């Protein structure tokens, strides 16, 4: 902060908008395929750790919506009339199949309707940070900017946390028990992450008659793949990985499936791999308000916090699975 700043800043500033999201996505899907750098900018202070943007957009791209896209669902029997609407989504239904009959047989009749799922929208927000300008002035680094950047990463962490929790709820956590999709969506393998084991990560989506869209693991888990020998990795690639790490891969892609290696080990546990079908088989992720920082200066104090309004739903509960590799 400098003495020339406006006396009162009341307008919301959009710091993390569509352009930044697109740039982040590019760093995941193109080039090295692994998140190169999470922290913003270079400056004359020591950073504590890496902070990474949300990985959910790489699984399901957020769709900007407006209030007019929301539907207020009145309960016809109770008459409850909510003021906050939901985003109504549609999914194809199952079909009854066909049968073989003689030429003069008449068909059976059936009606049809599309399946519907709802995306409920809510708000994530950070703490409101306050600081005396006199105290900020004593720092060489732009502490306010650093804290603001971290706030936005906290918002990203929040959606990742919720999303992973939802996936776990769908898959369950007991091997041998079907998940909500009606097939085994939580699988355990012993013997670590070997090629012989890892190839089976392709199968849950096949069991659901889906394709594999993207896999999610932690960087720590990806280290296990870096340890694959020549016979597992297949030729000289093993040597290049030994020298260049996972950057030796043009894309972080295994068995034809794009992979995301996140630094967020607290969310995506070591040796856990999450499987997702392509996004058009998965669900919807809508954003009513992009991450926005609200800043206010009152006399000698600066107040700011960040929020975003969004919702998501994994409408197709068969489109997610996870594998755990035990020693």
């Amino acid at each position: 902060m400098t003495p020339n700043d406006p006396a009162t800043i009341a307008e919301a500033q959009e710091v993390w908008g569509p352009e930044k999201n697109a740039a982040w996505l590019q760093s995941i899907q193109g080039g090295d395929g692994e998140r190169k750098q999470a922290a913003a900018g270079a400056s004359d202070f020591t950073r504590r750790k890496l902070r990474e943007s949300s990985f959910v957009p790489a699984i399901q791209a957020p769709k900007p919506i407006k209030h007019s896209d929301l539907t207020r669902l009145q309960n016809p029997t109770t008459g409850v009339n909510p003021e906050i609407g939901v985003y109504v989504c549609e999914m194809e239904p199952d079909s009854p199949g066909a049968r073989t009959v003689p030429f003069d047989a008449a068909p059976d009749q059936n009606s049809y309707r599309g399946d519907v799922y709802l995306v409920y929208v809510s708000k994530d927000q950070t703490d409101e940070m306050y600081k005396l300008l006199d105290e900020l002035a004593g720092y060489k680094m732009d502490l306010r900017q650093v804290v603001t950047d971290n706030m936005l990463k906290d918002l990203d962490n929040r959606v990742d946390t919720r999303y992973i929790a939802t996936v776990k709820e769908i898959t369950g956590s007991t091997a041998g028990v079907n998940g909500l999709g009606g097939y085994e969506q939580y699988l355990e393998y012993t013997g670590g992450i070997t090629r012989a084991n890892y190839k089976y990560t392709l199968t849950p989506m096949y069991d659901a008659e889906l394709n594999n869209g993207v896999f999610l693991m932690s960087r720590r888990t990806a280290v296990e793949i870096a340890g694959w020998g020549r016979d597992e990795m297949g030729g000289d690639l093993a040597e290049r990985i030994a020298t260049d790490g996972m950057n030796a891969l043009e894309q972080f892609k295994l068995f034809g499936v794009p992979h995301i290696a996140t630094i967020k080990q607290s969310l995506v546990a070591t040796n856990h791999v999450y499987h997702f079908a392509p996004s058009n088989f998965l669900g919807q992720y809508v954003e009513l308000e992009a991450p926005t920082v609200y800043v206010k200066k009152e006399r000698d104090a600066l107040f700011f916090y960040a929020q975003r309004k969004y919702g998501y739903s994994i409408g197709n509960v068969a489109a997610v699975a996870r594998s755990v590799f035990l020693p």
Partner: protein
Amino acid sequence: MATNYGTLQRTKPRLRVIKGYVGQNSNQRQEVAPVASGMAIMSGMLISKLWSTDNSRYEWVLGLVSGAIPYIALQDYTDADVLAAGGLTGLSCAGQFTLESAYFVEGTTANWVDNAAVSAYANDDATAANRGKLKLAASGDPILGTVIRQHADLDDARPYSSNVVPDADGRVEVVRFDTGWVKGQLAA
């Protein structure tokens, strides 16, 4: 209530008309009437018209009414067009339909075989949960129709019921029957 995954689900599927549905063709045996107060009528339930002295009109009630024609509800009482119209459509069991309904009391599973007589519970059955449900006809029960395409078991509508919560066995159990109600015809 899960809000972040899954589609909207019904506990039971809507009525399926396997044979005999002709849209709004006027030769389809059906009636439209208001739903009596307090009646939670879902598509597939057995309903009858009962005279309301308060409202001076016939209204749908769940279950068989003595002397009245039995119908099967085509819609849910909460459907927007039912609420707007103030009336719900029932398909007559005297009409020529093959129907599939999820509202039944199973009784002895092995007795659900082709040609078994189908009946329903009375509108004043001692067990309120039975009203509106089909059952295998016992001696003296009005015959609504006959079971079809079943052999010692209920049928499974799961393949085309993605919006219905399956039971613990992963099935969406239904009964199928040809309608054939005739006034005064009772099970032996």
